[in-house]
């Protein structure tokens, strides 16, 4: 369980996160939604410990991340998998080497075992016959999927995905969404996904947090999202006139 307690984050005077509180439970797919620039990535990086918070606390099973020593931090980081917004694959390694990398660093598996595990993960994200290609040689959507394969290679306890399906076609998007949901339940992972894709929200969101200009404006489930009375959220959800029509039809 991850708890975010009164987190503030500023970059040289520019306040990006304002008093964010949230809880994320294992086995649940938690979504953070919000407009571009609202602070989703920064929040996720604070949770992952890549940014130090300006004030407030991030608790992993009631232990404060900031108060941990290097060894404890390292131990917990091995249990995290993260998919960055841009994929962040290692340019100088092939697809297969990228997925094998965490296994090589942190397990005592033999080369064959590592390769098998990598291929298993790649198959789960539907990447076939691209093992020996370099990241620059595959499409953006494929890079995203390889990044997901790399993030799940070590069977993480915590999975963070920063817009895992931006840049993917609707069909592949749903495959990826379902994959995330599936492994979350299967391995009881605490998953946090940043997205602004309403399809994902409806498909996989167990719990949804809406961030507006660095403030948490709303929290709830996908069933509740259409009737919240929060103006900023309505503007976000019903951004297109088509969605507005659907809402009015429903009423």
């Amino acid at each position, binding site marked *: 369980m991850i708890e975010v307690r009164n987190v503030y984050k500023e970059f040289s005077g520019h306040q990006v996160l304002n008093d964010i509180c949230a809880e994320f439970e294992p086995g649940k797919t938690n979504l953070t939604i919000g407009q571009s620039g609202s602070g989703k990535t920064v929040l996720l*990086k604070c949770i*992952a410990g*890549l940014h130090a918070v300006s004030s407030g606390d991030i608790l992993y099973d009631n232990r404060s991340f900031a108060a941990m020593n290097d060894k404890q*931090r*390292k*131990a917990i*980081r*091995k249990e*995290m998998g*993260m998919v*960055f*917004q*841009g994929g*962040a*694959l*290692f*340019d*100088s390694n092939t697809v297969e080497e990228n997925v094998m*990398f*965490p296994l*090589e*660093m*942190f397990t005592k598996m033999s080369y064959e075992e590592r390769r098998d595990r990598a291929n298993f993960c790649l198959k789960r994200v539907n990447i076939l016959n691209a093992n020996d290609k370099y990241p620059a040689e595959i499409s953006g959507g494929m890079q995203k999927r390889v990044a997901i394969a790399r993030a799940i290679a070590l069977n993480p306890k915590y999975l963070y995905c920063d817009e895992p399906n931006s840049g993917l076609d609707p069909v592949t998007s749903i495959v990826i969404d379902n994959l995330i949901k599936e492994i979350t339940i299967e391995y009881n992972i605490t998953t946090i996904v940043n997205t602004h894709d309403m399809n994902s929200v409806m498909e996989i969101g167990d719990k949804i947090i809406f961030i507006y200009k660095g403030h948490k404006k709303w929290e709830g489930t996908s069933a509740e999202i259409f009737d919240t009375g929060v103006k900023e959220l309505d503007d976000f959800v019903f951004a297109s006139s088509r969605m507005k029509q659907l809402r009015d039809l429903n009423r």
Partner: protein
Amino acid sequence: MLKLLFHIGRYFVLMKRVFSRPERWRVFLRQTIREIDSIGVSSIVIVLIISVFMGAVCAIQMAYNLQNPIIPRYLIGLGTRETMLLEFSSTIVALILAGKVGSNIASELGTMRVTEQVDALEMMGVNSASYLILPKITAFVLFIPVLTVFSMAIGIVGGYLASFGTKGLTPHDYVVGITSFFQPFYVTYSLVKSLIFAFIIASVSSYHGYYTNGGALDVGRSSTHAVVYSSIVVLLFNVILTKLML
């Protein structure tokens, strides 16, 4: 001034992180071999080209300046050799390599930083500074003696080639010159200097690349800084080391 102190402080903090025990020796070894190839072996050609030309120019200018009946002509060869050994093969080669290797290292690390590859490493619990930078420093420091000795030899050959058809110099005089009064210490001196220069170039450039922030433009800026600052530090240490050793 305050900014300079900030950079120096952060540089040493980074070096402390770089020099920690590698996570996996096997991975470290593999990365180092990769870097020897990409930093060291790929620099051989440029070192060859500049050394042969500089050796030739050196011999021609010596011949021009020493056209005096009182001065024995073998001094031309001797002078060329000493110039190559003392200064050229360590310092000038280091400056050229600061341009090539320095910008290469800084842009590679800078790109990894802005595309979040460094974050991805940190995220997994890998000490990114050590994983990325230590192999580069090790590879360059290990390989620089090869480049230096190579440059000395090729430079002297360059002078020899120039001795054909240069007024006031014959190949025979040149050969007598380069084989007289050899001081092995000069080679040691040069090698020690080049080891330190290699460390400076690799570490200063890594520092600039590693702390890139922003986007593609900033990668270019870091790589310029890497070249400028590693050249300045190399020249500064050249004076210090020459004072200490000679």
